[in-house]
């Protein structure tokens, strides 16, 4: 009996010893690329298939129609696609802003690089909206001083790119200087201005530093892409043209 107890104790101590005596001796790290060399597991593909079909049919559903190609490069300092995006965002966001603040947005401005795909003549689908705006950016309204607005104008003049601007803007580059009007009015140095843009640009994206630290910041809680989709849903045929909102003086 005594012997049994001793054996039992030894056994116990062996067990506990096993747990505490493991020592890490070797570590190996490897990176495994997932590519066509690995077969797809059928069970997983089968699981995804019905969702994929549903997503694709939703994505390919025409929401609206454009009689012309909408591209970001069909003008010099403006573009059909840029004008389209800036105007529709203004149209969708201003009522939200107005309802909350009683004020109106002065104009909308985004960045040329943020236009991620063109839209060909014909039906415009959800997929177009996703390709045009793959990011989850939200629309925001910044309140800018006249000084900051001047910085914004100088950015546009220096860049000479077709950054999307809404139709309230009229910026003309002349031989020696420029003319800048919002709703046909010159900048009033005593006023502040409300500019619609994206949260990405407001945070200084694309070096639009004039949007940083605004006098006030209004978050619409409205995603850029949702504004596009909502606008397309309520618009049978898109009408957009180059109207010289940002141009060289002829």
């Amino acid at each position, binding site marked *: 009996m005594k012997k049994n107890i001793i054996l039992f104790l030894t056994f116990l101590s062996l067990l506990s010893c096993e747990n505490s005596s*493991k020592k890490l001796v070797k*570590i190996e790290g490897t990176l495994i690329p997932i590519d066509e060399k690995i077969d*797809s597991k059928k069970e997983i593909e089968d699981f995804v298939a019905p969702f994929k079909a549903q997503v694709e049919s939703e994505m390919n559903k025409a929401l609206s129609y454009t009689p012309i190609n909408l591209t970001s490069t069909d003008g010099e300092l403006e573009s059909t696609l840029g004008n389209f995006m800036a105007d529709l965002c203004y149209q969708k966001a201003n009522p939200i802003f107005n309802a909350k603040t009683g004020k109106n947005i002065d104009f909308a401005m985004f960045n040329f690089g943020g236009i991620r795909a063109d839209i060909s003549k014909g039906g415009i689908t959800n997929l177009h909206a996703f390709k045009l705006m793959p990011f989850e950016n939200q629309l925001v309204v910044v309140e800018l001083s006249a000084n900051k607005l001047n910085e914004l104008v100088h950015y546009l003049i220096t860049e000479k790119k077709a950054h999307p601007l809404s139709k309230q803007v009229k910026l003309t580059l002349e031989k020696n200087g420029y003319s800048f009007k919002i709703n046909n009015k010159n900048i009033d140095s005593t006023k502040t201005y409300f500019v619609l843009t994206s949260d990405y640009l407001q945070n200084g994206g694309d070096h639009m530093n004039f949007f940083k630290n605004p006098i006030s910041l209004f978050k619409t809680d409205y995603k850029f892409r949702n504004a596009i989709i909502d606008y397309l849903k309520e618009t049978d045929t898109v009408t957009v043209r180059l109207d010289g909102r940002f141009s060289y003086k002829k």
Partner: protein
Amino acid sequence: MKRRHFIQTSTAATAFLTLGGLSLQSFSKKTTKHITILHTNDVHSHIEPFPSNHYKTPNKGGIARRATLVEKIRKENPNTLLLDAGDIFQGTPYFNFYGGEIEFKLMSLLKYDAATIGNHDFDNSVEGLYKQLPHAKFDFLSANYDFKNTILNGHVKPYKVFIKDTIKIGVFGLGIELQGLVDPKMYKETKYLDPIEIAQDMSRILKEEEKCDLIICLSHLGYTYDNKDTVSDLILASKTKNIDLIIGGHTHTFLDKPTVVKNRIGANVLVNQVGCYGINVGRIDFYFDDAKNVTNKGVSITV
């Protein structure tokens, strides 16, 4: 009758002896233990491979391929954990249409063991994440988000201990500061706690109380930042102890191999991150041996 009883007893005894002999034999022969850790981060709802005409990553990724790979590795070594470092949500229409249900169901089919929460996992708010939790057959781990005053209270654990081939593996999660990154309407009353302090608590609990042999941090803090004051995985690794591996995310950093960092007491920590969108899977193999068989005190690291 009596004889028959005797035979039965002796057979049982023989069986016992044989078993004992076998286990003794295996104990003396095979002393090494092998744990495989597989990991992903920032998959962002990427379910299908990229199209073959994609400008940057043609034909890369795809969860059905990842499933094949994971299954093969699990067959080779059943002592495998599959982990994700957050931002499971947002990036393809699958998320916009189904709110994350497909992602969680697929990860469950792949038998993910745990994941931490990334900033984009709040994109449909704490309610949106909560709503999808029933579809996840794996645990969400986050030690520095205090969800007490949110609907997620009680549904996210700070850490979990896995036991594989007697090796105790402690895994805890860390999330990034949400203020300024995520709309407060989305994270609601989620409290962000200092990740370094929490990591020190976690590693102490896992080492001293849970007696873990291996400690892994699933982090969505980001690999490193230009602003050296911003907490990152590299800073976390250098300011803590007892963590063996930090599996990172958030910065979509494509590391060819894990970075080896010296921790607070001069021991090595591995920091790894495998980019984004399911383009890669990271694999870290840990080998253990009985202390009595180990002559060399150091750990050999091959990366």
